[in-house]
């Protein structure tokens, strides 16, 4: 069937001809109402029916943040960013008591992380973690296992406790929860037009399912109470002792900035390889009250232009030496700071990255962190790529195909930069060397990777992949499995 438009993702790495690009909106965009929520859900079910009739697949897309084709299809794409209802849950709705100020909320699929932050702030709550920026929708960030750097908490799937899904064009929608952690009372779920299903294995598989388990209509999250982050970023030469301490999770011994014997909430290592291996350590600590410290950042008068990454990527391809010059500029952008405090949204705020960029993230057990960090730095150095290497640490996820799955903590190595042949080559070298070294690993679903059916099973293990497929088969009727698939899922051998 002929395509009618071309969808391009945020980072301009995917350009997808689409049969139909449907912008969804709630009938009443001023007030969150259950009646409006159900009307929108019914419309989504009709669109699923249309996809099934035409024999094409259907995918929801949020912020378009993913670098990969995970959200893309040539069938019907549903833009969800206007679907941002938010509902306060009350004790009478819930199966179990919650502490005051910790009541969960129901969020419609298209609400952005930035909007969630603002909404929760009004409730004196906060998300326990988010990615480094805030343009993703809650459903998109969940479905790709987006992570921050919360060593003691985990990634976004860890605070999602219920998922409302449209899995068929007819009948009731599906309300998924863990049997071990029921959330909403059955009569409330039924009032939403949904059928409750409580199953730990099914829920854990659906958490990170990149559209293959149906269209996510909404999710219930358990927010944290409001909190502040307090810390510093320092130029830091990581010694053997530092690495040993980090890999042993002995942060007191790592002598991190402002540590005072505490484990940081967020720890990030960054190496600008082409600027003489200039390394920085960011350590942020969780505080209940705003500490006496400076603000997160001051406005600057000189900013990176939107075309910066495009121009740098092209120059790096044309001139071998230009990447080193770019590295010097990057070092200015990543300046140290000391004794800074703010809310999480103040630290992880609106992205400044525009233009064509390339990012990859490889998760490994923390015990192999140094090895992979050095492999990444070596890959970047070998290809003289206009990019940076960084590492964050995240508590393991319960999601079956969650990228942050490694025990006891997942160390995430990122190699991000301008989209150039050298950056892409450095990323491919990183993936190859990690595999050759026999290091247990996983790939971020939303960032560039070379996953295929074989590499998926090598990374996540046959058991996890089989469990995920089995869960999907229990949820999605056989004739609809292709409707909730796309070429990305087919290339992984998980579409049927």
């Amino acid at each position, binding site marked *: 069937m002929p395509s009618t*438009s*071309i*969808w*391009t*993702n*945020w*980072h*301009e790495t995917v350009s997808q001809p*689409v049969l*139909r*690009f*449907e*912008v969804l*909106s*709630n009938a*009443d*965009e*001023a*007030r*969150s*109402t*259950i009646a409006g929520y159900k009307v929108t859900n019914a419309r989504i079910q009709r669109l699923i029916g249309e996809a099934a009739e035409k024999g094409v697949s259907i995918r929801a*897309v949020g*912020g*378009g943040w993913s670098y990969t084709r995970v959200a893309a299809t040539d069938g019907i*794409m549903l*833009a969800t*960013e*206007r679907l*941002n*209802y*938010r*509902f*306060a*849950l*009350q004790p*009478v*709705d819930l199966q179990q008591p919650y502490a005051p100020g910790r009541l969960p909320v129901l969020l419609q699929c*298209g609400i*952005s992380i*930035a*909007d969630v932050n603002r*909404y929760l702030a009004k409730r004196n709550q906060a998300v326990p973690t988010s990615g480094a920026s805030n*343009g993703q929708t809650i459903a998109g960030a969940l479905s790709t296992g987006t992570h921050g750097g919360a060593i003691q908490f985990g990634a976004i799937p860890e605070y999602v406790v219920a998922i409302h899904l449209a899995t068929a064009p007819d009948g009731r929608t599906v309300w998924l929860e863990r049997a071990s952690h029921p959330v909403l009372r059955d009569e*409330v779920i039924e*009032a*939403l037009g949904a059928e409750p299903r409580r199953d730990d294995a099914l829920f854990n598989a659906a958490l990170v399912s990149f559209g293959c388990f149906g269209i996510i209509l909404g999710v219930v999250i358990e927010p944290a109470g409001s909190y502040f982050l307090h810390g510093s970023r320092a130029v830091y030469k990581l010694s053997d002792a530092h690495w040993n301490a980090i890999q042993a999770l002995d942060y007191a011994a790592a002598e991190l900035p402002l540590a005072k014997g505490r484990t940081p909430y967020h720890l990030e290592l960054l190496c600008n390889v082409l600027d003489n291996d200039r390394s920085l350590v960011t350590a942020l600590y969780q505080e209940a009250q705003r500490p006496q410290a400076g603000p997160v950042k001051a406005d600057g008068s000189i900013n990176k*232009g*939107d*075309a910066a990454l*495009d*121009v740098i990527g*092209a*120059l790096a391809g*044309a*001139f071998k030496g*230009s990447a080193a010059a770019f590295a010097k500029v990057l070092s200015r952008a990543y300046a140290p700071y000391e004794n800074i405090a703010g809310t999480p949204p103040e630290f992880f705020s609106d992205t400044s990255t*525009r*233009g*064509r960029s390339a990012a990859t993230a490889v998760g490994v057990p923390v015990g192999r962190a140094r090895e992979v960090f050095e492999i990444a730095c070596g890959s970047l150095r070998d290809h003289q790529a206009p990019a940076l290497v960084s590492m964050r640490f995240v508590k393991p996820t319960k999601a079956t195909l969650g990228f942050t799955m490694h025990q006891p903590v997942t160390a995430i190595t990122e190699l991000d930069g301008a989209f150039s042949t050298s950056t892409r080559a450095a990323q491919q070298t990183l993936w190859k060397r990690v595999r050759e070294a026999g290091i247990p690993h996983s790939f971020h679903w939303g960032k560039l990777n070379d996953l295929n059916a074989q590499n998926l099973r090598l990374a996540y293990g046959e058991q996890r992949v089989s469990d995920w497929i089995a869960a999907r088969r229990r949820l999605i009727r056989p004739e609809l499995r292709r409707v909730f698939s796309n070429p990305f899922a087919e290339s992984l051998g998980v579409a049927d």
Partner: protein
Amino acid sequence: MKMLVAAAAACVATSGCMQYRQKALNVMPAPSSDAAVCPDMSHGCGKTVWALGWGVVNVGEPPAAKCGDVGLAEVTVRSMPLTFLVSALTVGLVSPRRIEWKCAAPTPTEGTLH
């Protein structure tokens, strides 16, 4: 010189260069109801407009953005090397620019399940 040529080539080959953006505070961009013709998550909707005779006549101005009850989240004015060249050669008599815009996502009030 070679670097300048490469940079110019990069601008032409990619999304363009020399762009300026004004954003609204505390809103996030979202597709508008006419996004079927501009489903570009990075640039939003866009149109090339022409100012003729130093601004006496504007040609090709886009219709009002279909943003529902909310306004625009951001507007970008983009100059590409070719449009810059046309403006320079005609001393501003013919001055094309690319305008891009994104609607703001609505911010509904909080609801309850009852």
